[in-house]
């Protein structure tokens, strides 16, 4: 401005390059600022992952309230509504016309229609009427409320133990005493008990509201693990003080994903672990307790129903042996920005192979999926043979019974059915198609087929006579 002369300065620039350089500079400044802001954001994420906007206490039941403090975990938790198939598992969303008795507009596949052998196995029991594929955690309460097994049959309030968030209602019913509340609901009819429960599994079922530490809240597991540890020489085991953090990452899942029965007239939910977690330990337990789920409609055998023994099966596998917890594969760490959280969208690892498997197994996703599916394919094939064998045994006992065989003559075959059927069901109702413990699943099915063979032999005429021609 001191030199108004328009004369070109020898060091001045022409307008063209001036504007170009200005534009480049502006873009560079914008990019650097953008990068700076991005770095600030990432640093913030890494610094403080937690903002407490609500107070949580031991009575905060609604997961949406917890979700205000932990929005990332809550968002993922909500995603358990997803219905997605894997090759052998998972569920498919099937449309359905809602009725007054059952307002569900989406359900999963009906298993007894897909495989009618299941109907034969469970003849005379509620499972032969309605048994659909399991859906995600979000549906647990709804699906229990409207299954024909509950609608058509009288079920005890015990069932709610694993199909709702029970911690707060149990304590309320027991005046602060969790076990007293548990006992009170066990004795009620299901329909009456159902009224006190609002949410499917919620944050408070696994987390301490003050510290967020994992915590076992379901009485069935508290008592079951105590009995198991006692059988191993550990008296008075209290899971919430004695278990390691890594153990807890399986134990909170084992609160429900287990074999169980209702003990005595009080219908007390009991996990049959006092002799061990293996299938034969559980059968021995039931033998000694004299427990029978129902009398088989076609054969009159005193039969048992196995119920989703994921925890027991996992405990026999190589992953458990290597210290891998349920949550390591079903809730693997997932990165959100610079923050790492465990994925609360609980699902099949086959739907999330990179996070679930590749942390340990450095192979391509396709290879890992192929390995898992090969295990499942072999298990499913053997399970099919075992089911065929079981249906044949049931047919043989029924034929002998119809031909006038006495209870004494049928006793050994019925006992074989009781044991073999529980074994087959143990693999069938377990939700991994053998993956949780491949050799154990195969061993169980092999033992079942052998038991069936022996059962069928007892129905044959004495060896001196010609064997019955097979139909």
């Amino acid at each position, binding site marked *: 401005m001191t030199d108004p002369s328009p004369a070109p*300065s020898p060091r*001045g620039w*022409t307008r063209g390059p001036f504007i170009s350089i200005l534009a480049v500079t502006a873009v560079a400044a914008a990019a*650097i600022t953008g990068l700076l802001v991005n770095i600030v954001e990432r640093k913030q994420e890494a610094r403080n992952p937690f903002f407490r906007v609500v107070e949580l206490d031991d009575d905060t039941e609604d997961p949406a309230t917890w979700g205000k403090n932990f929005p990332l975990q809550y968002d993922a938790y909500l995603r358990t509504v997803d219905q997605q198939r894997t090759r052998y598992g998972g569920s498919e969303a099937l449309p359905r016309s809602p009725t007054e008795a059952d307002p569900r507009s989406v359900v999963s596949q009906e298993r007894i229609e897909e495989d009618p052998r299941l109907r034969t196995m469970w003849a005379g029991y509620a499972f032969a009427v309605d048994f659909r594929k399991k859906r995600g955690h979000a549906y647990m309460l709804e699906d229990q409320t409207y299954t024909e097994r509950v609608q058509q049959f009288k079920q005890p309030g015990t069932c709610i133990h694993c199909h709702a968030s029970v911690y707060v209602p149990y304590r309320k019913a027991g005046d602060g005493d969790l076990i007293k509340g548990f006992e009170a609901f066990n004795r009620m009819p299901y329909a009456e008990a159902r009224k006190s429960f609002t949410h499917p599994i919620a944050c408070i079922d696994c987390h301490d509201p003050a510290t967020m530490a994992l915590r076992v809240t379901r009485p069935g597991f508290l008592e079951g693990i105590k009995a198991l540890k006692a059988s191993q020489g550990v008296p008075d085991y209290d899971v919430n003080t004695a278990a390691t953090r890594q153990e807890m990452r399986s134990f909170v899942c084992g609160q429900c994903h287990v074999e169980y029965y209702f003990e005595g007239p009080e219908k007390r939910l009991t996990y049959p672990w006092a002799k061990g977690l293996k299938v034969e330990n559980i059968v021995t337990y039931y033998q000694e307790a004299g427990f029978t789920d129902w009398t088989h409609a076609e054969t009159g055998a005193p039969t048992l129903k196995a119920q989703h023994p994921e925890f027991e099966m996992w405990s026999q596998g190589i992953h458990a042996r290597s210290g891998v917890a349920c949550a390591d594969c079903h809730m693997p760490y997932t990165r959100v920005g610079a923050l*790492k959280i465990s994925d609360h969208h609980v699902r099949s690892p086959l739907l999330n192979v990179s996070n679930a498997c590749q942390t340990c197994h450095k192979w391509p996703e396709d290879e890992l999926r192929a390995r898992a599916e090969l295990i499942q394919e072999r298990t499913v094939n053997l399970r099919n043979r075992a089911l065929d064998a079981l249906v044949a045994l049931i047919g043989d006992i029924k034929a002998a019974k119809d031909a006038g065989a006495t209870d004494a003559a049928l006793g050994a075959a019925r006992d074989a059915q009781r044991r073999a059927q529980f074994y087959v069901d143990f693999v069938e109702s377990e939700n991994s198609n053998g993956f949780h413990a491949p050799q154990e699943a195969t061993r169980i099915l092999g033992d079942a087929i052998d038991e069936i063979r022996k059962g069928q032999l007892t129905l044959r005429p004495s060896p001196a006579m010609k064997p019955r021609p097979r139909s």
Partner: protein
Amino acid sequence: MRVPRAAALVFVALLGVVLGLGVYTFAYARGWSYLTNDPKACANCHVMNEQYDGWVKASHRSVAVCNDCHVPPDFLGKYATKAQNGFWHSFYFTTQTFHEPIRATRKSRGIAEANCRRCHATVALGMGTPSHEGPRGVSCIRCHSSVGHMELGATSVAAETR
């Protein structure tokens, strides 16, 4: 037409602003740390927390830092690799588009392999059978994958306690 000197001065000032922004961003992002051998720098963005935690507990912690294995030993190779990796790591972290869990590229594995053989030359020479040499040979880290930073249990426990 020429631009007046005053405008040129403003322009230089603007350049200074950009330079200042750049220098501040570099400093704020601890850019200088990437020129050092400090292993903490590699976990600046937290993506490599597990690897860092694993290294702290691994057998090589007292004899090798990240750079001893993951960049070539010569000056030029070292800084060229740092520049290349630095650019792409920043790019993918900023855009949040990368495979998880993170994996070493073929080039990175080659550099690590060469460094194994550099320090353990006596052993490597002693094992110089064809199956352990050349591009198709068995690499050291195929079996000794946990010497640099233990994975699995060790790292997940470390990650949990943070």
